[in-house]
């Protein structure tokens, strides 16, 4: 019995099989859990999630115990083979015993395999359930939550953290429980059946090795984290360099950028070198400890055999146990970090599930008016955190009119629209639709009555048609085509390989900025809303297409109310009324001609834009 000397080999393979999330950089996994004290509470909280799969889970546990038992019996059989058959010379008996060993191996193999799969199924099921639940919870939260938490962070919470939790479920249970059973069982066999003192020597090495491994992993964690950060940094620089390559060339900065990337890489290399040295030394040292164990067994056990206190077979058994002892312990220690990460991840997921701030319920369930819509703001005050973004804003846009809102960046135009859609509620004042406070509508009802066109179009994975109709089954392809033709977007659809059935990738690389805005516009129109809200919806559209959109609006939005935010003043000259906002206050209002006559801010802005030729 010897040492399967190949530390790097075995861990490499293991890592390959056991790194479901390694491809996604996990930002959060690095942060330590704040309160490790609640570990048991967390585990208690996890239990209900496992409950639906308890039968599978229990079956897996039983199989786990069985295969652990089979593992323990192996060395015992070898001891029997040596002492009872090989040394005395009974070949037939040996064959019988080895035959029994074969069946044991096969049974152990099957049990082990089934157990691993079943545990994987339970783990993945629980993780899937958690992901689904956290997403559906997340998506119901109100906008301020999304303002405070970046998309990247939330994605990592749902995807990476859920997967990190899976480690708690399957790997840890297999390793912790399975190996614990093996270690204790082997100790029991060695101690009672063979030799207590020698057993204690062997087992005595275990806590030392385990403790050293855990301590080492903890010690190395800061280095690992900093290496991971440096890797991310270097990759970021490279990405930046490639994306800005034209700029770098034009400005003649090639060598400076290469130098910068190489300096970063060199710095990273130094840390990586330290990491490599530390890990290789430590893990080889652990294997050396195993050699030490072997030396110990041969030396002490050999003397016992000489004195006739122990059989040669027992010595073989001890050596064999030594072999099976160390591998689980080394994996246990490597799982320790994973375990901690899993706990931290679980904490974050439950935090997300506990996150309050769902969107408000309607006070009364008013039906949304079907006819023309009037929008009224009544002394509305609003701020996100400190400064007032809207101050005492009042206006009333009568049904069927098209109003424009203009003003410099930061004047509160977009906020006004967010309030109308109830992404936020004003601190003071109220907003009325046909004299009904918008808080009396169910959110869905309110929003389904308002068509919003934003500057950026968000695509969801799916076909173009699905993206335009947003799963409204009642829309026929003819209706879609009609609207697209009206705004002049049908040409760009014909350009696509499968027209409306073309799969859209999430970043919608197939479309230019202007085309995306056209599609966003089509989506809003297809909703057939009573009110249309355009937020900088035509910034990247060339004037020709914009005119077509405006023409389409006149036919498609006749009798409907519209609020339009625009930078380019010439696009809103025909609005029924123009509101001029500055720093959250309404400064002027009137139609184009009136405002020009007033010679106020609007007239100035207009003058600047059409600057004399």
């Amino acid at each position: 019995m010897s040492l399967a000397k190949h530390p790097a080999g075995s861990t490499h393979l293991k890592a390959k099989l056991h790194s479901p999330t390694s491809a996604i950089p996990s930002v959060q996994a690095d942060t330590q859990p704040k309160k490790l004290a609640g570990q048991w509470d967390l585990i208690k909280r996890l239990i209900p999630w496992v409950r639906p799969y308890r039968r599978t889970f229990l079956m897996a546990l039983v199989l786990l115990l069985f295969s652990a038992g089979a593992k323990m019996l192996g060395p015992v059989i070898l001891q029997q083979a040596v002492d009872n058959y090989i040394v005395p010379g009974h070949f037939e008996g040996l064959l019988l015993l080895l035959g029994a060993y074969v069946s044991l191996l096969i049974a152990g193999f099957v049990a082990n395999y089934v157990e691993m799969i079943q545990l994987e199924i339970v783990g993945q099921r629980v993780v899937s359930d958690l992901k689904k639940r956290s997403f559906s919870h997340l998506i119901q939260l109100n906008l301020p939550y999304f303002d405070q938490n970046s998309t990247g962070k939330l994605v990592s919470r749902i995807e990476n953290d859920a997967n990190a939790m899976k480690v708690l479920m399957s790997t840890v249970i297999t390793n912790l429980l399975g190996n614990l059973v093996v270690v204790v069982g082997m100790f029991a066999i060695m101690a009672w059946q063979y030799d207590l003192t020698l057993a204690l020597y062997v087992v005595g090495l275990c806590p030392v090795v385990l403790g050293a491994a855990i301590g080492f992993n903890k010690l190395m964690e800061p280095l690992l984290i900093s290496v991971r950060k440096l890797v991310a940094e270097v990759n970021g620089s490279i990405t930046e360099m490639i994306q800005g390559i034209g700029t770098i060339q034009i400005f003649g900065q090639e060598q400076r950028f290469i130098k910068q990337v190489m300096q970063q890489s060199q710095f990273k290399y130094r840390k990586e070198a330290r990491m490599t040295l530390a890990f290789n030394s430590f893990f080889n040292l652990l294997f050396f400890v195993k050699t030490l164990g072997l030396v110990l067994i041969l030396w002490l056990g050999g003397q016992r055999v000489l004195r006739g206190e122990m059989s040669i077979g027992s010595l073989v058994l001890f050596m064999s146990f030594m072999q099976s002892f160390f591998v689980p312990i080394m994996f246990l220690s490597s799982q320790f970090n994973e375990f901690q990460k899993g706990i931290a991840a679980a904490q974050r997921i439950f935090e997300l599930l506990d996150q309050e701030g769902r969107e408000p319920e309607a006070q009364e369930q008013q039906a949304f008016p079907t006819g023309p819509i009037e929008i009224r703001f009544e002394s509305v005050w609003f701020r996100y955190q400190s400064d007032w973004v809207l101050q005492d804003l009042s206006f009333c846009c009568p049904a069927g009119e098209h109003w424009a809102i203009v003003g410099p960046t930061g004047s509160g135009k977009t906020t006004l629209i967010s309030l109308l859609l109830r992404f936020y509620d004003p601190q003071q004042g109220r907003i009325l639709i046909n004299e009904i406070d918008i808080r009396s509508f169910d959110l869905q009802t309110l929003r389904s009555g308002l068509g919003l066109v934003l500057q950026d179009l968000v695509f969801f994975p799916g076909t173009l048609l699905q993206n335009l109709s947003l799963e409204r089954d009642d829309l026929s392809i003819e209706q879609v085509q009609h609207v697209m033709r009206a705004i002049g977007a049908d040409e760009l659809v014909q350009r696509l390989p499968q027209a409306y059935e073309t799969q859209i990738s999430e970043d919608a690389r197939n479309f230019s900025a202007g085309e995306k805005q056209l599609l966003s516009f089509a989506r809003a129109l297809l909703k057939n809303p009573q009110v249309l809200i355009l937020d900088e919806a035509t910034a990247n559209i060339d004037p020709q297409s914009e005119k077509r959109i405006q023409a389409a609006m006149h036919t498609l939005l006749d009798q409907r109310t519209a609020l339009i935010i625009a930078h380019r003043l010439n696009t809103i000259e025909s609005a029924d009324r123009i509101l001029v906002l500055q720093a959250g206050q309404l400064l002027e209002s009137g139609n184009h001609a009136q405002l020009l006559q007033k010679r106020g801010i609007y007239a100035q802005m207009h003058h600047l834009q059409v600057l004399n030729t």
Partner: protein
Amino acid sequence: MSTQSQTAPKSSSAEQSLPQTMAWLWPFWRPLRWRLLFLLVATPVGVLFNVLIPLVTKQIFDALQAQDVSADFIAEKALVIFWLGFINFVFNTCVQSIRGLTNFHFENAFRQRLSQALLQLGRGFFYRFRTGDVTTRMIDDISEKKLGWFACSGIFRLYQAGLTIVGCLFFMLRLNPWLTLATALPLGVVVAFYIYSSQKTVAYARERQQAISSLNAYLTSTLDGIRVVKAYGQEVQAAQNFDEVVEKQYQREISLARVASLLEISYSRFSELGVLTVFALGGWLVIQGQITLGTLLAFNAYIFMLIWPMVDIGQFYIKGRQASVSVERVRELEEYPREIIATPEGLMIPSGYLQLQFSDLSYSFGEHEVLQQVSLNAKSGQRTVLAGAVGAGKSLLLDFIPRILEPHSGHVLLNDQPLADYDLSQLRSSLGVVSQNPSLFSASLRENITFGRQGLSDADLQVALDVAQLSQEMGSFAEGLETRIGQRGVKLSGGQKQRVAIARALIHRPRILILDDCTSALDADTEARFWQALHDFVPEMLVILVTHRLSTLQQADQIVLLDKGQVVAQGDHRQLTAQPIYQDIYLKPH
């Protein structure tokens, strides 16, 4: 201008052979001769001390069986094992550490050479290769996990595996040839099994990875567009879609686990099968008196020693193929023809009056001619606007001036000399370029504006900020000019990014300014102030720009109207108002 074009040819089809891969790697090894020598010598030493251990174990057991030894003999032999193990530990640590260091070193070395090559390529290259693809090659293909790993660890693990197998077989054959044949030969199956099963696993793992990617993509697009989701009342639908995506990932995870778990437990069973053979056949030989019990146990130890080298051989085969693909992908970048040739000792840019002339310039993407015989003339002190609908070729035309693109036919002339005759770096440094989506870098505002150029004073910086209409806003940056703006300038708004890029282009007082629709995120009065300030800053500047704004068009000295890559009209705003295309795009009443 649309940047999508033919994607790169599938590299897997043009896979390199192993010798070619090695030949590509060799120049990187050359400076590391001592390291190479160390690995060549130290690896066999470590292996030797390892394969000797079972022989000593055999001596102990033989002595125990013969029952005529002293306790001292046992202790002495145990001590020998201790020292063998210790020396092996020292050598193994050194060898493995050097291998690890070298992997990391290679990653950097590959990256440096590739960066040099890449930064000499013109824009034409990026019309062929997507930036994401290039980034993957620069980050992933050459990393210490792929090509870097193969270049050192891959090769030397094979070396170590070979030596271990030779060493074990040598002693096993000396102990008993028949038992060697019976036990060691079947281990060759491990190699085949590894190759077969890892190819299977890789396929499943790739599918799982795709499932994870689509889950991430779904999350990202939904959460980025949370306003749209909510405005369209899509919360429930979105959750249902997500459930489907999660379910798909679940299926993939389980399929992968079925294969991977089988693989994982198989390896431990291989050694158990070997043990079984040793005990059955070896037991018979012991009983027959042909070998001793110690020999049987030594064989048993060798079986364990042989498993991982077998895996390593399989791994070398798999990783070697992957490395060949990576090398091929890297060479594709390195060997891409240099379009832009810098003329040695080129002409200096003349001082004073400049005239930039495009004459019969054509350019095509594959079959498709995107610019056809474009001719135009721009002069110092004039503002020339390129106008036309989306896709007319306006932005593309601008790329010829800094020579990041070379015309396929026709010329660009500066004061009647072809641009290519001028000194490239002087040409570029006399230009100010602001592109449609300006590239900013994760550094401070100041560093982004001065951008590594020497001899710029604070006064220059202030003027650039003033002209670019940034100075009013400086108060809103917490640390003023030292504010870090994040990767690609994520911490800035669209308008701020454009103004930073404008300041960057202006700070060194360029002779020629190129603006590609870069004022779209500025509001009208800011833009008007910008034009006034620019005129006051350098009145004699030659300006070429792309814009959609009527007010800017009206002020241009010259408008060149493009349609589908051809010049259809030239003149000032008043002259062009008669052109139907111009009317269609810019003048139709609404």
